[in-house]
């Protein structure tokens, strides 16, 4: 396990193991990033809508 080259070679299956992990990472992190971005957008939109109401009275 100590040899990094052997670790990255994955016993000759590097072409299958790393794409599998990479793809899962891209899909799940992409979904998480999109969810977070949409959440922030919704909070910002809501704050904008609520702001003038607080000032008016």
């Amino acid at each position, binding site marked *: *396990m100590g040899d990094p080259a052997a*670790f990255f070679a*994955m*016993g*000759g*299956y590097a072409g*299958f*193991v790393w*794409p*599998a*992990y990479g*793809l*899962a990472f891209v*899909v*799940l992190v992409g*979904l*998480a990033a999109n*969810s*977070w971005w*949409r*959440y922030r957008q*919704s*909070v910002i*939109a*809501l704050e904008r*809508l*609520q702001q003038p109401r607080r000032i008016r009275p």
Partner: protein
Amino acid sequence: MPWCGWGATVVLAVGLSWSLAVAPPDYQQGDTVRIMFIHVPAAWMALSVYLFVAVVSAVALVWRHPLAEVAARAAAPIGAAFTLVCLATGSLWGRPMWGTWWVWDARLTSVLVLFFLYLGYIALVNAFDDPSRGGKAGSVLALVGIVNLPIIKFSVDWWNTLHQPASVMRLGGPKIDVSMLVPLLVMAAGFSLLFLTLLMLRMRTFLNERKAVALRLNAAAAAPAPRPPRERTAAAHPGAG
């Protein structure tokens, strides 16, 4: 919610390093067995998230609980993502071990149908201008699609397939060595925490968006501009005259 997100990150980091570096290679499959540590938990999530969507859809239809429909809407894209991960990693595992990227056998085809059910649900709930109508149509689709779950689960027993039968969730206990079972369960726990985090985040987003729409409608109803002057003063100061 933040603790759940950090929990998911930590558990997934532990699970990933365990799966990639600590767990031993399989005596037959070599290092390709490491694909299992994402493929199998993703498949479990694909099925259980669909079950979740179907159950909360039933709650939404029968008891009309407003949060149930929001939960179903929020969960479906997460389930679709897990199904996509399951299909893609399965393909990448099938190529070196079976000699093919894809076969049209019962297990693979039924999981592909599950993916299309998710996509159909997402498209259907967004196809209506009125969110409650879209939610109702989507709930019916989610409930009809539930027949696919036992087909997926038992496809490996009912039909001849390249896919191996269940080795963890079977009667008589898991048939897999502890050195691989533990990282597998850690990854499954990480995926479950990730699902919970994203579910809560997406539900909050949806509720925020709904609240924003209501506020805009209120603001539009109270807006003085499009009304004639006399009515406007009456509306702006109700009870003043």
